């Protein structure tokens, strides 16, 4: 049996380390570790509630708009603020623009290099020597890769027309939106959107299908547990009861959509570097007490679970819950569903923009309470996103975030069940343990965003770091920081 560590896993957002055990050419075990934490929860405490949208956006520069949206709806709920229709639409349009940007970026600039040769220069060369089946189309795909750079840039230029700037748009505020829907902005947005729809329809979608045809075995690789969860996104009415992509769960590969009860969500920390007495709490009463080293702990990510079940989130979950995608749960199904979703959202945006009331308000004044508790559920391009807020004495007293990649890249939970990515890796064939491209293909299909996943830590003064490093066939555990500081907590060292 060989054990492989990949650190850094490149072509994703943030810092991820993956370890897999391979036996007889297949992955038999896997561990996903987030290797960066920053402490957003701590930073938000004692700041004015209105800061939430600006600060939480910097959890991630690829999906900041989702955090801006989540913070805005959480604050609206805390303040009892009813936003004008125009604001609802504009918020959706900027979020949609970023979905388009993110999905295009993901397929071309993060994922496709797992299958083809990129342009003949750094950083696309050198690359691993795996079997490249699309050598005939490589020239075309590389051309599309380059065109996609322009398209994702255009998606951001489009989004900035209302968002103010991208990334990190300042336009999302409690009570509505800052930017007005001027006619020239509307017409430029529509013109850009038409070009993006054409690109998705004529290049992106066909390219994903070409890839899926060339690598058909990947329709049966990377399934995982088979549970899908979506909070839903793009509110179509003021109450949020109607959404472009609805809320629901599909468990155990079932076709029956079940409801989502936010109280059923807990975060387990048995294999995470947090105190065991904070295990299995709902985020509204959640607590983050780091503890390292911890015998079984191997990740800074907690393990979000729905009634104890690890759930995959993302475009596949949303589209299947919505009945907009039919297929299996696999590497290729994720890519296909993501491309389908990009087109669906882009086309919906054409309808939304026509509903704007030119000259109508974008902001509604509201009273602001000195104390409140609220939460907001939405979706980032990568999946279900929730913010939980408590205001005391007019300031933030608690802020919790569960991001999509925390669901997907989570470690094992209290019952030892692997997280979605870990489970999806089981059974993956690995031809060359020195160049395990198949492992990257599975990971990348989830479009991981690690900055999101590992954001809410509050390391204590005496926390030590547990580092996992090893050679092939041998596992060695060492605590570097502990060694430097001369403390040992039962960690054996060779």
């Amino acid at each position, binding site marked *: 049996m060989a054990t492989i560590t990949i650190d850094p896993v490149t072509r994703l957002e943030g810092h991820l380390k993956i370890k897999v055990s391979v036996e007889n050419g297949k992955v038999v075990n896997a561990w996903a570790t987030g290797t960066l934490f920053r*402490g957003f929860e701590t930073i938000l405490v004692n700041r004015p509630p209105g800061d939430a949208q600006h600060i939480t956006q910097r959890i991630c520069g690829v999906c*900041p708009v989702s955090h801006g949206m989540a913070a805005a709806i959480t604050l609206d709920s805390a303040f009892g603020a009813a936003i004008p229709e125009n604001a609802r639409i504009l918020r959706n349009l900027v979020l949609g623009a970023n979905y388009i940007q993110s999905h295009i970026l993901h397929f071309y600039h993060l994922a496709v290099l797992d299958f083809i040769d990129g342009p003949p220069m750094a950083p696309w060369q050198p690359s691993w020597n795996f079997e490249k089946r699309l050598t005939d189309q490589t020239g075309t795909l590389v051309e599309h890769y380059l065109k996609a750079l322009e398209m994702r840039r255009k998606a951001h*230029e489009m989004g900035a027309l209302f968002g103010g700037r991208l990334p990190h748009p300042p336009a999302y505020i409690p009570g*509505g939106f800052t930017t007005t829907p001027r006619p020239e902005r509307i017409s430029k947005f529509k013109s850009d959107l038409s070009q993006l729809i054409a690109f998705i329809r004529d290049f992106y979608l066909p390219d994903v299908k070409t890839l899926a045809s060339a690598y058909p075995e990947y329709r049966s690789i990377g399934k995982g547990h088979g549970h899908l969860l979506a909070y839903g996104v793009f509110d179509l009415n003021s109450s949020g009861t109607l959404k472009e992509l609805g809320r629901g769960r599909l468990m155990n590969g079932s076709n029956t959509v079940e409801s989502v009860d936010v109280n059923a969500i807990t975060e387990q920390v048995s294999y995470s570097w947090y105190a065991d007495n904070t295990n299995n709490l709902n985020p509204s009463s959640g607590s983050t007490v780091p503890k390292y080293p911890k015998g079984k702990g191997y990740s800074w990510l907690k393990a979000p679970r729905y009634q104890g079940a690890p759930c995959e989130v993302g475009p596949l979950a949303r589209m299947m819950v919505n009945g907009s995608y039919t297929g299996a749960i696999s590497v290729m199904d994720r890519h296909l569903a993501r491309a389908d979703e990009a087109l669906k959202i882009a086309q919906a945006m054409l309808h939304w923009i026509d509903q704007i009331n030119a000259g109508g308000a974008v*902001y509604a004044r509201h009273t602001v309470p000195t104390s409140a508790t609220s939460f907001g559920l939405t979706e980032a391009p990568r999946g279900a996103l929730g913010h939980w807020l408590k205001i005391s004495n007019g300031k933030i007293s608690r802020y919790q975030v569960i991001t999509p990649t925390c669901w997907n890249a989570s470690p094992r939970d209290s019952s030892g069940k692997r997280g979605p990515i870990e489970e999806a890796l089981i059974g993956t064939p690995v031809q060359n343990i020195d160049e395990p491209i198949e492992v990257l293909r599975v990971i990348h299909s989830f479009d991981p965003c690690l900055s999101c996943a590992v954001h809410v830590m509050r390391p204590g003064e005496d926390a030590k770091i547990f580092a996992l490093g*090893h050679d092939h066939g041998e596992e060695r555990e060492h605590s570097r920081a502990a060694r430097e500081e001369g403390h040992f907590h039962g960690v054996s060292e060779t």
Partner: protein
Amino acid sequence: MNVTRREFLKLCGVSAVAMGLSATDLVRLEDLLASPNGPTVIWLQGSACTGCSVSFLNRISASAPQTAAEVLTDSINLIYHPNLMALAGQDAVEELKKASTNTKFLLAVEGGVPSKFSGSTCWAWNYNGTDVTFLRAVRDLAARAAGILCIGTCASWGGIPGAYPNPTAVKGVKAVTGKTTINIAGCPAHPDWVAWAVVQLILGNSISLDSYGRPRALFDRTVHDRCPRRENEEAETFGIDHLCLEELGCRGPDTKANCPVGGWNGGSNWCCEANAPCIGCTDPKFPFAQLTSQEGSDD
């Protein structure tokens, strides 16, 4: 890429003057453009959100370069970038080690450098079974780099992860290495600012820095100084066009940046033009103790 001097000069036109390229610069460019391997750049990400990389991608174009800046940035040899590169794991790190040992390289750093727990809140990579902290990687590479570019407010001074109470003891690159860095501030950094700095470094031009390490050429005047709304009536509530946003907490008067001149996202818009008060993201103290008013509203 291969571009002849004549083609390049044609592309330059006005932009060479605008970029402050002298006759000597243009001669140097000839050698540079003739070389198959452009200057090597190593781009690291630490306590970051990737926003600065996403922002930089917002100026990359597939079509023929429109400006001298694009020609030059197209010519760099970006051998390490975690979001873009083909290789993963130790093989990726080997490329970085090869380049940083054998050639002159420019170090670009995105994200702050945490030093809590000996730097273990951010690992750069695992190499030969050992986890290497970002702190160690930055110090090691900074010592050998021909120049250091801090991309964004986080790499410059810590940024949002470094905000009170700075849970992971994040600092800017200069503070942890003692080396002079060129601080392209911004949250995110504007891609034109980054491109400008890369061009100057490629040409070997010295860049005049202010007391915070920011290029004076980019950060000499306040946002308010050149804001088209400065003479206008002040807004008392959100969502109204053309009004000055000072009453709503705009930090434009205290923030050095040229946002009003070039705008963002290819001139699509910028914060104040979108009726959003400036939050001062190019400032060493960003994000301050608060960015919005106590109640987060205009009351």
